[in-house]
C-alpha cells in the first residue's frame, strides 16, 4: 500500500461523497455502507483520485458514482474481473470492488471464487440483502430456500450460499462480516480490509426494507464476534460453518502474499523482440 506516502492533507468523509442522489429506497442499508466506505477512506487518509470503486449491476452496484473517487460501473457480475485488471495494471491505486449478493454470488460467482484464489491486493465489499432488489424481489443465492416470490413460488428449494466459508475455502486472505446498521464498526472493518494485503472480503449485512422488511430485525440479531479473529483456516472454517451468520467483526486473517504478475529477468525494448523472428 502506498497510502502513507501521500503528501496531501487528510480529508473528511464528506469529501469522498459526491452530490448525486442515490437511487436507493429510504431506509436502505446501502446508505450506511456508503457512509462507512467514505469514513474508511478518511480514516486511511486516502485521496479520492487514488481510489477506484468498481461495480457490476444491482442496487448496491450504483455506489461508485456516489463517491468522488474514480468509478467503474460495468456489466452484471463482472466487478471483480474489472477490478482485478485495474489493480494489476495500476498497482499503486486503492481498488475497491463493491456490489450485491446476486451480482457477486450468482452471475459473478465464478469470479468470486477465482478472485479469492488469485489474492490480488484489493477489497471486495458485498452488500448482502438476500434478494434481487433492482428487479423487484427475486431470490438470490443467499436467500432462504423456502422464501416465496413471484419468480420462484414456494421458494427456490436451493440451499443458501455461505459466502464467508466459500471465500475461506477459495483462499481469501482477509474475511470480515459487518452490519450496515453500525456504520462506525463497518468503516473500521473496511479500513482494516483495505490495509490488509491480498484479497480482502467484507460481507455487509445490508437490509432491504422494501422486499425483505423482516431484515429490520437484524439490528437486534447481530453481535460482535465473541472471539478474536484467527489465522488458522481450519478453525475459521469451523466457526464460520457453525455460527448463525450474525457475528460481526474480522473473522479470518491469512498470511498469503498478494498476487503479482510475472516479472521478467531481463528487460527489452519492444523493437528488440523481433530478434527471435529474424532468419
Amino acid at each position, binding site marked *: 500500500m502506498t497510502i502513507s506516502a501521500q503528501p496531501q492533507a487528510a480529508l473528511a468523509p464528506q469529501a469522498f461523497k459526491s452530490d448525486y442522489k442515490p437511487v436507493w429506497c429510504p431506509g436502505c442499508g446501502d446508505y450506511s455502507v456508503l457512509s462507512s466506505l467514505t469514513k474508511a477512506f478518511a480514516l486511511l487518509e486516502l485521496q479520492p483520485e487514488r481510489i477506484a470503486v468498481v461495480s457490476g449491476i444491482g442496487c448496491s452496484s450504483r455506489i461508485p458514482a456516489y463517491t468522488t473517487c474514480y468509478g467503474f460501473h460495468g456489466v452484471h457480475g463482472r466487478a471483480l474481473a474489472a477490478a482485478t*485488471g485495474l489493480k494489476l*495494471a495500476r498497482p499503486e491505486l486503492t481498488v475497491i470492488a463493491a456490489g450485491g449478493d446476486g451480482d457477486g454470488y450468482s452471475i459473478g460467482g465464478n469470479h468470486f471464487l477465482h478472485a479469492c484464489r488469485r489474492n490480488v491486493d484489493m477489497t471486495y465489499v458485498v452488500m448482502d440483502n438476500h434478494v434481487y432488489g433492482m428487479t423487484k424481489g427475486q431470490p438470490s443465492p443467499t436467500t432462504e430456500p423456502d422464501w416465496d416470490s413471484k419468480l420462484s413460488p414456494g421458494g427456490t428449494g436451493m440451499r443458501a450460499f455461505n459466502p464467508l466459508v466459500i471465500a475461506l475455502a477459495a483462499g481469501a486472505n482477509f474475511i470480515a462480516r459487518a452490519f450496515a446498521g453500525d456504520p462506525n464498526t463497518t468503516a473500521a472493518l473496511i479500513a482494516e480490509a483495505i490495509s490488509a494485503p491480498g484479497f480482502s472480503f467484507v460481507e455487509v449485512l445490508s437490509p432491504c426494507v422494501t422486499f425483505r422488511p423482516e431484515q429490520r430485525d437484524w439490528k437486534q440479531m447481530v453481535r460482535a464476534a465473541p472471539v478474536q479473529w484467527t489465522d488458522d483456516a481450519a478453525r475459521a472454517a469451523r466457526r464460520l460453518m457453525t455460527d448463525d451468520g450474525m457475528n460481526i467483526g474480522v473473522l479470518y486473517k491469512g498470511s498469503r502474499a498478494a498476487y503479482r504478475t510475472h516479472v521478467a529477468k531481463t*528487460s527489452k525494448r519492444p523493437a528488440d523482440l523481433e530478434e527471435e523472428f529474424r532468419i
Partner: protein
Amino acid sequence: MPHGTSERRTSVSVAIAGSGGAGVMTAGNMLLEAAAQAGYYALMTRSSGPQIRGGEAAAMIRIATHPIDGTDDRYDLLIALDWMNINRFAAEIPLGAASVLVGDPDQGEPPDVFVKSGARYTPVAFKAAAKKIPNGWPNMIAFGLAGALVGLAEETLASVVRKSMKKGGDALAGSLAAMRAGVEAAAAIAGVPRIGAAPPQTARWLVTGNQAAGYGAIRGGVRFVAAYPITPATELLEWMAPALAKVGGALVQAEDELASINMILGASFGGVPALTATSGPGLSLMIESIGLGITAEVPIVVVDVMRVGPSTGIATKSEQSDVNIALYGMHGDAPHVVVAPNSVADCLLTTQWAVHLAETLQVPAIVLADQFFGQARAVVERPADVAFAGDRKTAPAGAESYKRYAVTASGVSPMAIPGTPGVTYTADGLEHNERGTPSSQAADHVAQLEKRARKLASIDYGTHWADVEGEGDLAVITFGSCTGPVREAFARAAADGVHARLVSLRLLAPAQPTRLAAALEGVRRVLVVEQNHTGQLYRYLRSEYELPGTVTSFHRPGPLPMRPDEIHRQLIEWSRA
C-alpha cells in the same frame, strides 16, 4: 533418374504425414527452416487428429521463390511414414497425376483416395532403413528425402539438423546419417519438381501469424493482456506472456472469457492499453462486455482468431464465419472498429493499427484474424515499421468542470485516468449525460449515440482501409486468408491475358463506401470471395455499399483452405462472358 534433371518451379508443395510419435512436425519444421536458410519463402500449416498428444499428423510445407500467403492447389509430394488414419487428412492434401507419393511398404499399401489421384507411388522402407542406422529415425530420413527432392542442398539440410540438435553426440550423428540416407533415396525418385533459384536476399522473418499479432500489439503500446486459453488463439497469448513481461507489461490468466474481457476493460480504464485474444466461442462470451467498452468508451483490442463455427465447431481449422458476430454481435446501436489482417506478416500491422484506432477513438476494436494465419509458420519479408501507437486523449488534472462524455465535434472527449486529481468520474454502461451521470432522457441518449458514432468518422483511415491492386473491369473483393489465393489466381489469370482488380478489405467497420466506390470505378463485375457458408461479407457489402455492375458471391465454408484454382476458374469464365 537423378533429381537434378527434374523441372524447376517457382513453388513446390510437400506434405509429410505419419502417426503419433513419428515426428512429422519436427521434420516439417526442419524443412521449413532449411528453406528459410536456403533463401526461399515458405509456409507451413499443420493438421492433426483429435488426440491431445500424439496421434496422426501432417505437416504441409510450401516453398517458393516469391512471397506466399496461401497453399497451392495440389501437393507435388506426399511422404507418409505410415498410413494411420490418413484418410482424415486426405482432403487437405490434394494430389494430382503429376504428384509423387512416397510410402513405407512395410506399413501397407497407399489408401485408395491417393491412388485414385493418379499420383506416382514409390515405396521407401523408412522404418527398416532407420533401424540400420544407430540413433537414426524415420522422420529424419523423410526430412532428407523431402529436402533433396525439392532441391535443397545437402549441406543446408545438415546445418538445420545440427542447429536442432545442439547437444550433438550420438543423437546428432544418427540424425545426420538418417538425413543423408534420405538424400540418397531421393536419387531413385523421379518427377518431383525442384524449386528454382533462390531470390535475392532480403531481411526476412520466420514467424506465425499469432506471434506477429502479439508483436504488433506490443508495438502499438499494449501493456496489459488477460488470457483464457482457446484454440487457435492460445499461442498468441503464450507468446505474449514472456514478451510483455520483458517490456514491463503484465499478462494474467483469467478464469473465463467473461473475466478476461472485463480485466482488460479495467486495465484500460486505468490508462493502460489492453488486449485479449480468443476465438469464436470466447468472442460470443465477451460480446456483452464489448458493448460496455463501447458505451463507457473504454478502448480495448480483442483478437478473434477465427475457427470453424458455430459452437465448438472445428477448433483447429480456419473459417471466416465470425464476420456477422464481429460486426453485429452487440445489442443496441454499438459502433466499433473491426479490422482483418490479410497475411501472416500483416497480422503485425493490422493488430498494431487496431491498438492505434482503439486508443485514438476510445472504442473497442476487434481484429478478425483467422486460424490459417494464426497457426501458419511462414518465411515472410520483414514487415515495414509503422508508427501507429496508442494515442489516447487524456484529461489534465483539475480540468474545469470536467465532463468525461462531453459532446465534442469529433466525438472524442478527453478521458481522465485514475490518479489524476480534480477530474474523477464514473465510467458507466448505463446511458449517461456528458458528466457520466446515468440518464434515461431521450436527448442524452441521442446525443451520446451520435457522439459515439461520430468518433469513428473522425479519423483518417488512410490507405490501410484495404489493399487495392490491379486494373480492369473485373474486381474481386475479399479479406483475410482468402487474399493470398486470390492474388495467385490473379497472377495466373494475368498469364492468360485476363486482368482484374483486387480489393482486400482490412477495415471492415466502419464501412468506407466512398473509398470503395473510388477503388471500383469502371468495374462491371464484382466477385466477393470469402470462406463461410452464407456469404457474410457479401451480405454486409450489399447492405453498406453501392457495388457496381453484376455482383456475385463466391463463398464456401472451411475447413479446407481456399485454393487459387477456384478463383482462377471464375475469372476465366467471366472473361469469356
